[in-house]
């Protein structure tokens, strides 16, 4: 297979050349341990400081409030467990939504087994939470609200500013998982009442296995990885220097290019959405029509099943993803698709195509063309489809 059209940018991204170039010296030349005192340990330390400044700048935070982690999931776990255990004396109630990433949901479920109570807010058919429901859910035991910024499956953007206001008013900490937001919408923490926000490098053309977390000064939180004094004693472990350097560069590029990136992916996204809607019957666009990740396309194709759709696309060189149960090996289709009210039958036939910087106009034509044939072929094979 020669053709390769990658439309899974929300799963992960290729690293940009500028990013890799910046990382290279730190593998085998400037390999010193940043905690050490000799000169090229200090070199590594300085490189981390630069990266921290870049990420801080990209999100409108102060460098002192930014810490690096081993990925987006670690940061989610840190944020939630760290707040929960550090504030247990104040209360044991956490509020989240039904469409969070598993790195949030599974932590919440873990905490439920350890005496915490969690409210999982509903979302409407577009994946939006209800601010009134949120307000009502807050009790005097509530210590944390954790609601994601941009949903990874259907792309819905939550009203983070409003949520933050409510949280602040009630004196409750607010964490938002901004893994899908960074590099895809403007983020300015100064404008938001967010206490903790986390990121992941490999979603913005940076390296895998590196994440970042913003912790507002004064927030009461336990460390998650205990040990050495790295990251100002907040996150132990020898720093992944090349990874952090790469993340810093990727964050810088993402903000520098934000407007053109958004314009580019949005145009292709809308073209793809129209191409599908105009050429294929029995389809449903999932997510919000406007408050949406600029590169996210998510459709359900009735009468067919997501995994066979993905496999068929893969055979013509197109890489996408699905919320189908069969891809994940779990019983139920994506919790996000269920939460927006889809039936099992329909949710099984979902397809997510996410667009990025290297997507070209003709890729979209190619995808639409092949989707038409593939969907038709699978439907012809389906006992549910009555031609």
């Amino acid at each position, binding site marked *: 297979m020669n053709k390769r059209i990658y439309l899974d940018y929300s799963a992960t991204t290729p690293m940009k050349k500028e990013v890799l170039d910046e990382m290279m010296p730190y593998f085998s030349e400037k390999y010193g341990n940043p905690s050490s005192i000799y000169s090229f340990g200090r070199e590594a330390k300085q490189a981390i400081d630069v990266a921290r400044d870049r990420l801080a700048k990209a999100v409108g935070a102060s460098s002192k409030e930014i810490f690096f982690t081993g990925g987006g999931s670690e940061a989610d776990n840190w944020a939630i467990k760290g707040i929960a255990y550090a504030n247990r004396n104040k209360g044991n109630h956490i509020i989240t939504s039904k469409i969070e990433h598993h790195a949030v949901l599974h932590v919440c479920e873990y905490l439920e087994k350890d005496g915490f109570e969690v409210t999982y807010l509903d979302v409407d058919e577009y994946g939006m939470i209800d601010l009134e429901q949120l307000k009502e859910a807050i009790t005097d035991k509530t210590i944390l609200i954790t609601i994601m910024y941009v949903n990874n499956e259907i792309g819905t953007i939550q009203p983070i500013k409003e949520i933050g206001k409510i949280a602040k008013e009630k004196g409750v900490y607010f964490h938002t998982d901004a893994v899908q937001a960074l590099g895809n919408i403007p983020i300015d923490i100064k404008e938001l009442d967010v206490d903790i926000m986390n990121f992941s490098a490999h979603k913005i053309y940076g390296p895998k296995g590196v994440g970042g977390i913003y912790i507002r000064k004064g927030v009461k939180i336990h460390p998650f990885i205990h040990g050495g004094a790295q990251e100002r004693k907040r996150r132990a472990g020898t720093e992944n220097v090349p990874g952090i350097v790469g993340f810093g560069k990727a964050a810088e590029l993402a903000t520098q290019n934000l407007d053109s990136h958004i314009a580019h992916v949005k145009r292709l996204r809308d073209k793809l959405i129209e191409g599908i809607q105009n050429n294929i019957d029995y389809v449903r666009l999932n997510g919000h029509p406007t408050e949406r990740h600029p590169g996210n396309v998510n459709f359900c194709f009735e009468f067919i099943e997501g*995994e066979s759709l993905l496999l068929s696309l893969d*055979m013509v060189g197109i890489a996408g993803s699905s919320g189908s*149960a069969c891809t994940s090996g*779990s019983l139920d289709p994506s919790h996000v698709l269920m939460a927006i009210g889809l039936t099992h039958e329909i949710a*099984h036939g979902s397809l997510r195509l996410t667009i990025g910087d290297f997507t070209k106009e003709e890729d979209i034509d190619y995808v639409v063309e092949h989707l038409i044939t593939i969907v038709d072929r699978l439907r012809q*094979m389906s*006992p549910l489809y009555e031609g």
Partner: protein
Amino acid sequence: MYSEKVMDHFTNPRNVGEIENADGVGQVGNAKCGDIMKMYLKIEDDTIVDVKFKTFGCGSAIATSSIATEMIIGKSVEEAVGLTNRAVVEALDGLPTQKIHCSVLAEQAVKAAIYDYAQKNNLVIKGLENYKPVDDVHDHHDHDEDEE
């Protein structure tokens, strides 16, 4: 993830379609679980002379249906009843653990179609004496995970 054999049967599934006035029709699975297999049999002199299927499901659901049809064409009804999901998996050069149930589904679809044939013709078929049609054999999706 999938063997070449699976991919071959997924890409070029054999015997897709329906048989009008089939001698036996069986459907198993349900849409809620994400997979439905429907199998049509043409039977002459106790021999399966034609099979067609329609499947809603994942790649391996389609591949197991396809290979199952090949495995029973030309076989006697009794032989076909003896088709095990194990034999299907082997014929496909294996399946990922969490996809094994798709092969169970294929076995059950064949049995369901033969049962239908037996019911229509008032036959008692060896190996099907205790068969009870089930709507959903999807005892679903075993995981390849350890205890936590």
